[in-house]
């Protein structure tokens, strides 16, 4: 059963419920309550007549009995009023769950359409297939979040069904607060990821201590295990470089299609990311080839990816013209760059790791994106003072010079970034930078 099937099945579960039937039950309770009040009034008139006729002596017990009968009717009426309120509470909860389910279903349908579209109409070029594959992963990731949201919707509704059902059955009359229960629980999303990703549960069996973490939805602890984290990153298009002890990414990852932001708007918080990035004020490093009009964007990231994960990225994107409204594609073919990226401690100079183009297809080490993230349980990522330096090799000197000029411009415009750029050799054409923001 695909994630989409699960979303639709869950949505079905609440959508098939009937708010009308719950309304009917509430109405029936109130109608009976009115009848009981009529009976109570008739009992009262008997009591009044009896008390008027009674002048001392016998009859007191009869009056007390009548008062007790009246009170019983009152209790019954009150009980039915509470029952009516329970049915109305469930009705409201169902209506809300149905509304949420409809919205999630629509979101899922839109995602699925995107997925179908992604695979439709592409040729057999490897690049096209790669893009479709990447989109597939991105959509899957978003679908997991939708599933998590919908599970929260049904769990909340079930909690209300349980509480009101118990009230009806046992008349506990307790007031339960479900405040805040609709807030998305990121740990829960993590747990759903773990459940949905094939083979992950088997891995958790291998690491019993992580089962405990899963029970407590301790997302951070789960991600501290490189093997488990790799499984998750694999699902999202990442790859673990055992030799270097860092995560990198294939050329056909989620991000190659959607870019970072779309995915990490959803997942960033779950990963606990806190990154420095170029272009965050809207001024990006971009340059245009005067002959072709093709425009290029270079983006850098570094920082904390999770509590114990840190690293950096270099991304290179293209657009057919400068008038692109900020829309760029992952660089392909000749436009790709060869990057050797080093993440180091800018206070001590200690080098943590270097990615010399791992993750690229084939052996050319050319990529649109150089990513290196290390997961180290002994490190508190937010306490690190990370610097990033890299050498970038491009296809020709002209492109290198334009990239160099743009990086120098950017560095001057953003003195707080502490970005220094130097030209390297012309054969092959390279430049290097050091970014100590």
């Amino acid at each position, binding site marked *: 059963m695909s994630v989409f099937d699960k979303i639709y099945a869950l949505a*079905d*579960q*609440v*959508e*098939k*419920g*009937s708010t009308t*039937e*719950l309304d*009917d*039950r509430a109405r*029936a*309770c109130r*109608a*009976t309550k009115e*009848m*009981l009040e*009529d*009976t109570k009034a*008739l*009992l009262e*008139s*008997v009591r*009044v*007549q*009896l008390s*008027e*006729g*009674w002048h001392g*002596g*016998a*009859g*007191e*017990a*009869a009056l007390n*009995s*009548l008062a*007790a*009968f009246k009170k*019983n*009717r009152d209790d*019954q009426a009150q*009980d*039915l009023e509470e*029952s009516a309120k329970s*049915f109305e509470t*469930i009705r409201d909860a*169902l209506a809300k*769950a149905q509304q949420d389910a409809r919205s999630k279903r629509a979101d899922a349908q839109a995602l699925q359409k995107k997925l179908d579209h992604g695979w439709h109409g592409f040729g057999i070029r490897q690049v096209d297939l790669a893009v479709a594959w990447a989109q597939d992963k991105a959509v899957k990731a978003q679908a997991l979040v939708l599933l998590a949201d919908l599970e929260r919707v*049904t769990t909340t*509704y*079930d*909690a209300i*069904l*349980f509480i*009101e*059902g*118990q009230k*009806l*059955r046992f008349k506990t009359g307790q007031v339960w607060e479900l405040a805040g229960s609709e807030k998305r629980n990121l740990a829960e999303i993590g747990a759903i990821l773990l459940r949905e990703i094939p083979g992950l549960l088997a891995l958790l069996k291998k690491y019993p201590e992580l089962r405990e973490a899963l029970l407590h939805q301790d997302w951070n602890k789960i991600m501290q295990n490189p093997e488990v984290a790799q499984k998750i990153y694999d699902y999202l298009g990442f790859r673990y470089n055992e030799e270097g002890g860092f995560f990198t990414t294939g050329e056909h990852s989620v991000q190659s299609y959607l870019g970072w932001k779309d995915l990490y708007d959803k997942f960033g918080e779950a990963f606990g990311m806190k990154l420095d990035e170029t272009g965050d004020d809207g001024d990006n490093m971009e340059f245009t080839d005067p002959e072709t009009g093709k425009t290029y964007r270079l983006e850098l990231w570094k920082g904390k990816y999770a509590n114990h994960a840190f690293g950096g990225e270099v991304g290179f994107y293209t657009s057919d013209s400068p008038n692109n409204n900020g829309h760029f594609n992952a660089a392909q073919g000749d436009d790709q760059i060869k990057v050797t990226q080093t993440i180091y401690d800018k206070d001590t100079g200690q080098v943590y790791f270097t990615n010399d183009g791992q993750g690229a297809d084939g052996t050319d080490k050319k990529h649109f994106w150089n990513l290196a993230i290390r997961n180290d349980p002994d490190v508190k990522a937010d306490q690190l003072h990370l610097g990033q330096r890299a050498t970038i090799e491009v296809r020709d000197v002209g492109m290198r010079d334009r990239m160099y000029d743009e990086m120098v411009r950017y560095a001057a415009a953003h003195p707080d970034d502490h970005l220094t750029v130097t030209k390297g050799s012309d054969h092959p054409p390279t430049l290097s930078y050091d970014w100590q923001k």
Partner: protein
Amino acid sequence: MGFEVDVADISNAAAKLGEGKPPTLSAEGSPNVGSTARAGGFAGDYDVWLATRKDDLDAAQQQVESLVESIRTAAKSYHGTDSEARDAFLKALDSSFERIDR
């Protein structure tokens, strides 16, 4: 006049009580609350609720019927000429009401 009138008034009030519409609950089987994990459990809760409330209403109706019957019986055996009749009437109500299950 005197207590005879009271007995007649009490009998009338009881008759009206007897003619009153017995409270019933028109709710039927468990409402369709969807098919989430708790739906089955809720249906069980609902069945218990419905059965106990119906029992409750039946018991209330029996109570009313017993009350009406007690008053009718006591009023029938009331003879205004008997000096002890008033006390006998009230005592009859005391003891018969007491026997009614609440």
